[in-house]
């Protein structure tokens, strides 16, 4: 069963390793291409519960082993019966990471292991805070009200010099798109090769499209059978029987139309997975074609989007700050969220915006008037 595709981008070149099938792995050789920024997206096309695993990036003589896992749990009972429709709502997200440091002399005994609780987890970013050389275990979970399928996160790990391997693991119970941006930072050290592996542990609590379709058809058939059985019930009055016949007869075209509508929509409305891939391909094409111009534009647009979002939610994201320390130790302050406007005082933000808006409107009108006067003076 095809789970999805995976592609890696190295500078302007795209190093594709094609499709990764269930319980398979693929290797990409990065030797001879220098330092690379590697990023990619893995996505699925089917509604299946599974676990994914991305494993092992090797660079130079050192390995840094990181076990990084996250788990989605969700209720999929409201998902529509469309092939490829992916309007999932996750009701909880848990993140838990473990760093394992292995010495570079070939001894596989870990120097230390630690679990890292991702203290600031959000869409698009994930920071971890740790100090080097000490054993530390922090665990926990983070709950979200809603998370969409496109939820993804990146981490900015700080590889230490006394560790020599990294393992990146992702576990999810959903066909969720995710990025492997952490590898971008890690592979800049000088990757030799990268193995991408996806394994699956299917569960039976979520059916595929055909299973759902069959279930729906069986339920519809059962309804019809029940309706005709009910007609033999002598307790029903003649009016109730006629009403039952009408209900059954009108349900048949309605049901058939709903299935026909699904097919018709498939003809004209692009599939969500296709749209996602098309947009991503276009973004990639713009990056490769317009280079730094598009990258700058994208940076500004993303920044504006984030600023606008923070104005809506009254929450700003304090960015990651890393302080390099002696002996190859870094101290990293993880990014965290700060609520600018306290709960119950949102009206202050609205009032400020209104007052500033009114003042700016007057200034705008006055500026236009003065500009008009200037032009009239020049034309005299």
């Amino acid at each position, binding site marked *: 069963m095809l789970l999805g595709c995976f592609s890696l981008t190295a*500078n*302007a070149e795209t190093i594709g390793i094609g499709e990764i099938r269930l319980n398979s792995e693929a290797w990409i050789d990065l030797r001879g291409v220098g*330092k*690379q*920024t590697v990023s990619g997206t893995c996505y699925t096309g089917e509604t299946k519960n599974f676990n994914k695993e991305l494993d092992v990036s090797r660079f130079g003589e050192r390995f840094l082993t990181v076990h990084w896992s996250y788990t989605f749990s969700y209720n999929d009972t409201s998902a529509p019966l469309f092939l490829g429709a992916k309007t999932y709502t996750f009701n909880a997200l848990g993140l838990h990471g473990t760093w394992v440091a292995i010495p570079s002399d070939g001894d596989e005994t870990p120097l230390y292991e630690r679990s890292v609780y991702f203290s600031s987890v959000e869409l698009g970013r994930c920071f971890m805070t740790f100090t080097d050389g000490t054993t530390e275990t922090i665990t926990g979970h983070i709950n979200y009200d809603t998370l969409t399928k496109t939820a993804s996160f990146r981490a900015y790990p700080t590889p230490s010099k006394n560790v020599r391997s990294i393992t990146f693991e992702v576990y999810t119970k959903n066909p969720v798109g995710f990025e492997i941006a952490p590898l*971008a*930072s890690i592979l*800049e050290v000088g990757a030799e090769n990268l193995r991408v592996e996806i394994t699956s542990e299917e569960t039976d609590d979520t059916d595929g499209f055909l299973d759902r379709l069959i279930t729906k058809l069986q339920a519809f058939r059962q309804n019809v059978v029940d309706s005709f059985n009910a007609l033999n019930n002598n307790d029903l009055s003649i009016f109730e029987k006629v009403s039952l016949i009408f209900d059954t007869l009108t349900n048949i075209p309605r049901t058939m139309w709903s299935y026909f509508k699904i097919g018709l929509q*498939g*003809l*004209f*409305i*692009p*599939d969500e997975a*296709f749209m996602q891939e*098309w947009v991503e*391909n*276009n973004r990639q*094409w713009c*990056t*490769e*074609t*317009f*280079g*730094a*111009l598009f*990258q700058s534009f994208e*940076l500004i647009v*993303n*920044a504006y989007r*984030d*600023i*606008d979002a*923070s*104005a809506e939610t*009254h929450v*700003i*994201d*304090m*960015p*990651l700050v890393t302080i390099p320390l002696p002996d190859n130790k870094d101290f990293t302050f993880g*990014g965290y969220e700060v609520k*600018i*406007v306290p709960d119950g005082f949102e009206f202050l*933000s609205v009032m*400020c*915006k*209104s007052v*500033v*808006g009114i003042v*700016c*409107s007057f200034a*705008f009108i006055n*500026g*236009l008037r003065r*500009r008009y006067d200037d*032009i009239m003076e020049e034309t005299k």
Partner: protein
Amino acid sequence: MIIEALMSIMFTLQDFLVPIALPQFPSSVLTTLQLGMEYVEAGAGIVANYVPLPYLLTLFGIIATVEVAIATYNIVMWVLKKIPTFGIS
């Protein structure tokens, strides 16, 4: 399916018609820029809670449009004044 096919054709066409590849930022520069933008976002995010940024951007767009229109008008008039046939002084 039909729209998807058209969109795929569009993508192939644009790839064929625009055969340029401008240089990209080196990854280290891009990473630094992204980090810098995060600081900008944090700072501007505070301001955006008290200032209607979309509204101000709209006003700024109008001002820019007016100024560009005036500049265009002046350039056109400057060219026309150079042509004696029109008799514009």
